[in-house]
């Protein structure tokens, strides 16, 4: 495996190449092997604590890799509002780790004081556009940075939805000034579960709106696709990815793996596949 040369200073912006999601089981391997991946992304909530092995590992990894922090817990579309304490912790993590990108999800997660710790789907209505855009704007102000907002995978759709998901996301981005994080696997999973057109989704998002792409695997439970990030990216998702990078130009692309996590080298190999597709695109453009 190619090794990354240490640069001695905190690396800057996320390059338009493939990166990997950093999970705690890979902390030591990443630090020992220094694989040549373009950047790393960490789940913000796993690095809230003052001390401990995880924050020490991220501090060290951060010295050699451009870093993106990806939140899963703010529930920015919750009508009960954004948890101020959680937002303050994200702000603290940003000050500490100095990520080049910060992202969250187009979802809600809590109601009546109970947190479901999941990325729950929103109805695609004007009211939800306004609420999510307002709260994304509040979070951007509080955090002092622009956010990328990710489309979530869905197992149900609200009967009240009046917009296509891509129209919904585009409107949120227009109103709040956020960018979009396009999870191609989520587009595929939702399209299969809800009988939607995945290509229309990708072609429906405005060019220039997508700042990052996520790729992951899913599993099947009967007729339902489950977004478990527990396997290789499937061929259909790679095909959609090719469509996406052609439309949104070369875009930083993350390989995520959260269950049945394999050896770090498997993630690196998967990221190289994304890199080779990005390379082909550049070859065509040259």
């Amino acid at each position, binding site marked *: 495996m190619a090794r990354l040369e240490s640069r001695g200073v905190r690396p800057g912006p996320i390059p338009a190449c493939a990166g990997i999601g950093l999970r705690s089981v890979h902390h030591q391997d990443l630090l020992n092997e220094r694989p040549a991946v373009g950047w790393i992304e960490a789940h913000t909530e796993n690095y809230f604590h003052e001390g401990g092995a995880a924050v020490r590992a991220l501090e060290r990894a951060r010295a050699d890799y451009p870093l993106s922090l990806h939140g899963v817990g703010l529930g920015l579309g919750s*009508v009960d509002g954004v948890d101020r304490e959680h937002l303050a912790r994200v702000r603290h993590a940003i000050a500490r780790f100095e990520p080049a990108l910060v992202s969250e999800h187009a979802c809600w997660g809590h*109601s009546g004081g109970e947190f479901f710790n999941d990325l729950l789907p929103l109805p695609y209505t004007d009211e939800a556009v306004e609420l999510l855009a307002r709260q994304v704007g509040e979070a951007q102000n509080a955090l002092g940075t622009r956010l990328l907002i990710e489309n979530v995978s869905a197992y149900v759709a609200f009967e009240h939805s009046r917009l296509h998901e891509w129209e919904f996301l585009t409107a949120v981005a227009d109103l709040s000034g956020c960018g979009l994080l396009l999870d191609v696997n989520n587009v595929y999973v939702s399209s299969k579960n809800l009988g939607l057109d995945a290509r229309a989704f990708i072609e429906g998002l405005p060019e220039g709106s997508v700042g990052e792409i996520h790729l992951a695997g899913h599993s099947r439970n009967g007729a339902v696709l489950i977004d478990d990030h527990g396997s290789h990216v499937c061929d259909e998702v790679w095909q959609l990815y090719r469509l996406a990078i052609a439309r949104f130009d070369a875009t930083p692309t993350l390989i995520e793996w959260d269950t049945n996590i394999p050896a770090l080298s498997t993630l690196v190999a998967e990221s190289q596949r994304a890199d080779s597709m990005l390379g082909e695109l550049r070859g065509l453009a040259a």
Partner: protein
Amino acid sequence: MASLRELQASFAAALRDASVPCAVLPRENLSIYRNNAAISFRTALGLSFPVLRRRVGDDYFRELAGRYRRQHPSRSGDLHWVGRDFAAFLAADLHGTEYAWLADLARLEWSREQAAVGTMHAAISVDALARFAPEQLEHLAFTLQPSLRLHASDFPIFTIWAANQTDNAPPVDQFLAGECGLVRTRVDGVEVRRLEPRVFSYLSALSAGAPLGEAVSTAGLDQSALVQALGFVFHEALVCAVALKVARPAS
């Protein structure tokens, strides 16, 4: 048309109770979200209480986690906090049963969990005592490492904890004598350590702000053991600050 507030409230209610209606399709897929929430909660709880989970087995742990979640649902978007009330829940839920000892084990594991993500503050050296006269020593009060947690139980929780660091460990008889000890953050990890009862009671008194002489008496140590007791807290890098605590004149 229902408001967003009404839609989220009905979705949340349908996650708590499958019989509650919610305007989504396909409706049966709501069970995926219902299961996700329960599994995320239980998994996070299991990561905070690995020894307890090992001792009771996955089936009983699932039952405990389910009962606990109904009374203490997650209150944060950060799953690391779901175990905060688990020991108190177990103390009430298992009171008077043969599993009552699990509450003390849970307290110990929660302390370990906190210490694992804490920081060790700079300890001062025994040289800091040079500015005090020998007769002042008994009036010294100490600020100990903030990560220090002291535990005393009627059950052998430190032995149980130490014996169950891997799966399939042989059981420890939970009706052996009670134990006490400490949990704290070290530079590169956590220390979980059983203490001799007098040392425990000495540290407990110091930790509660008692001056050295009083802490030594409370622990039933001879005053001649004062210097040794003093040496112990410095040797263990437990002292972050020291101050003379002047007794208030009797009124």
